[in-house]
C-alpha cells in the first residue's frame, strides 16, 4: 500500500489547477469541461476493459441511463438535481448489477456482442418511449443546483468536473494496487489461473462492471446538466465506440491512459473544426492502428520507452 496520495496524483492535480489560467476563452474552457466529463466515464470503462479485460462496446447505455435518470427525475418529477444524480447513479449501478451476473458469464466475443446488444436496446428504448424520454428529439434538462446555488459559469463547471475526475482517478489508482485490483488483473491474464489461485472470478468481474457503470452514469448525469439537454445519441453505438477507443488508445489498464484517450478524442474533433461525418472512420482507424502498432496504448508504451531510456542512461 503506497498511501492515499501519490506523486502522479499531485502532478495531475497541479495540471488541473493550472490549466484554467492557460485557457484564453470560454470555448477552450468548454472543451476542457467536456474532456473532464468524458474522462470520468473512460476511467470507469478502463476498470472493466483494462483491468479485468472484458471488452464492452455498449457502455454508452449507462451514460444514457445516468443522463436520462437525471433528466426525467428533475424535469418530470421535480426532484432536486443532486438527489436525482445520486439516484440515477445508484439506479444505473443496480441495473448493471442485475445484468452483470448473466452477461459476465459470457467470455470474449460473446460478451462483446452482448454489450453491443445492450447498447442497441438502450437506444431503441430511448427512441420509442417518447412519453418519458422525448423520443428522437431528446429532452431539456434543468441546470444543476443545490440549496439555491446553481452551477452556471463554465469555470464553476470546470471545478466540479475536475474534482469528480480527481476522485475517480484516485479511486482507480488505489484499486489497481489493492488486492482486488491484483485479482482483476489476474483474471485478465488467465481466468482459469486466477480461479485456481482462489480468486472469485465472477464476483470481481461483477464489481468491475458495476463500478464502471456507476462512473459512466455519474458522467452522464453531469453531462446532461452541463449541456441542459439529453438525446438518444448519448446511447448510440458511435458513442460506445468512442468511449472504448479512448480506453484502447490511451492504454488498457492505465488510468492516466484513459484520461489521455479522453483528451485526444475530445480535443481532436475541435482542432479539425468538427469532424462532420468523419468521426466513425477516424475512430475505426485509431482502434485498428493502436491495436496493430501500439497494442499497449499510448501511456504504457511511453512509460516503457522512458524506463528503457533511464536504464540506458544508467548503463552509460
Amino acid at each position, binding site marked *: 500500500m503506497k498511501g492515499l496520495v501519490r506523486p502522479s496524483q499531485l502532478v495531475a492535480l497541479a495540471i488541473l489547477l493550472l490549466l484554467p489560467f492557460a485557457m484564453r476563452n470560454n470555448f477552450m474552457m468548454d472543451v476542457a469541461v467536456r474532456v473532464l466529463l468524458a474522462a470520468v466515464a473512460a476511467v470507469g470503462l478502463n476498470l472493466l476493459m483494462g483491468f479485468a479485460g472484458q*471488452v464492452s462496446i455498449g457502455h454508452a447505455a449507462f451514460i444514457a441511463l445516468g443522463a436520462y435518470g437525471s433528466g426525467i427525475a428533475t424535469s418530470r418529477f421535480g426532484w432536486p438535481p443532486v438527489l436525482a444524480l445520486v439516484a440515477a447513479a445508484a439506479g444505473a449501478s443496480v441495473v448493471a448489477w442485475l445484468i452483470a451476473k448473466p452477461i459476465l458469464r459470457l467470455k470474449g466475443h460473446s460478451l*462483446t456482442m*452482448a454489450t453491443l446488444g445492450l447498447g*442497441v436496446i438502450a437506444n431503441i428504448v430511448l427512441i420509442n418511449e417518447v412519453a418519458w424520454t422525448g423520443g428522437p428529439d431528446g429532452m431539456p434538462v434543468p441546470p444543476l443546483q443545490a440549496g439555491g446555488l446553481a452551477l452556471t459559469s463554465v469555470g464553476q463547471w470546470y471545478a466540479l468536473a475536475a474534482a469528480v475526475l480527481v476522485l475517480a482517478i484516485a479511486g482507480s489508482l488505489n484499486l489497481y494496487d489493492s488486492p482486488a485490483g491484483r485479482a482483476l488483473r489476474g483474471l485478465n491474464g488467465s481466468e482459469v489461473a486466477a480461479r485456481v489461485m482462489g480468486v472469485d472470478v465472477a464476483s470481481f468481474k461483477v464489481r468491475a462492471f458495476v463500478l464502471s457503470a456507476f462512473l459512466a452514469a455519474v458522467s452522464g448525469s453531469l453531462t446532461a446538466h452541463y449541456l441542459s439537454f439529453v438525446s438518444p445519441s448519448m446511447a448510440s*453505438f*458511435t458513442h460506445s465506440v468512442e468511449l472504448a477507443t479512448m480506453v484502447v488508445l490511451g492504454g488498457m489498464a492505465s488510468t492516466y491512459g484513459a484520461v489521455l484517450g479522453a483528451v485526444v478524442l475530445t480535443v481532436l474533433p475541435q482542432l479539425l473544426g468538427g469532424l462532420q461525418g468523419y468521426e466513425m472512420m477516424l475512430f475505426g482507424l485509431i482502434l485498428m492502428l493502436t*491495436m*496493430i502498432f501500439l*497494442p499497449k496504448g499510448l501511456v504504457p508504451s511511453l512509460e516503457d520507452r522512458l524506463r528503457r531510456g533511464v536504464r540506458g542512461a544508467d548503463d552509460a
Partner: protein
Amino acid sequence: MADFMQFLFAGLTTGAIYALAALGFAIIYNGSGVINFAQGDFLMLGGMTCSAILGMHVPFALAAALAVAITVVIGLLLYWLAVKPAGETSVVSLIIITIGASIFIQGVVQIVLGKNQHTLPSFSGDTALHILGAYVLPQSFWVLGVASLLVVACAVFFRFTLIGKAMLAVAANRLAAQAVGIPAKLVLLLAFGLSALLGAVAGVVAAPITTTSYDLGLMLGMKGFVAATLGGLGSGLGAVVGGLLVGVLEAMMAGYVSSAYKDAVPFVMIIVILLVMPRGLFGAKSAERV
C-alpha cells in the same frame, strides 16, 4: 392462420439472410478463431456498392458482379492489412481490430455513398404471390433460393475440394496443417475472401427487401452472430438452422407483440442461449485453454 403464415414467410426470408451472415462468421471463426465483427458490413457493402454502381446506368447483372468483387477485395484487404499484421495476439486485440475495421468501413461508406437509405429493384417484379393464405414477394424466393444454393455450394466446397479440405485442416489444427505443407496464411486469406463473398451476395439479394444503408451491418452482424452462436459456432448446418430460427422468432415477435422491440429478440436470445446451452445446437465440445 393467414397471419401466422405471413409472419413465417417473412421470418424465413430474413432468417435466410441471417443464415448467410452466420455462415460467414463460421468460416472465419473456423479458420482463425477470430469473430469478425465486420461480417455484417460485408452484407452492407454488397447492397450499397451494387446500388451505387446501378446508379451509373450499368446493367444489373454486371453491377451485382462488380459489387460482389469489390466486397471480396475489401474482405481480403481486411485480413491482409488489419488481421495479419497483428500477428499472434490476444482475443481482445482481435475483437478490437475487427470492431475498428467495421466502424472504419461504415465511416468510409457514409462519406462516399452518403447516409441515406438505398434500395435495389426486385429481381422479378413486386407482384405478391398468394401462397397458403400469405402474400409473398417474389424476392423472398430469390433470397431463399440463393441462400440454399450458397449453403449447398459451401458444403460441397468443404467436403469435395482440396482447398476446402485444406481450410478444414487449418481449422482443426493450424500447426499440424502447416507441418503437412498447407499454407495456413493463404488459407486464412481465402476464408476472409469467402465470407466476404457470402456476405456480399446475401447483401445484394436482400437489399430489395431490407433496403440498405451504411449502418445496416451492425444489426445484421449482431443477428448473424446470434444465429451462429445458437447453431453452435463453427458449424455450417448450425449457422443455417440458427439463422432461420432467429429470423422466425423475430418475425413472430414483430407480428404478435411489438415491432419496435423486435430488435431486442436476438439480444435476449444470445444471453439465454449462452447460459442454457453454451455450445449451441450443433457446436463441438471445447475446453478453455490456460
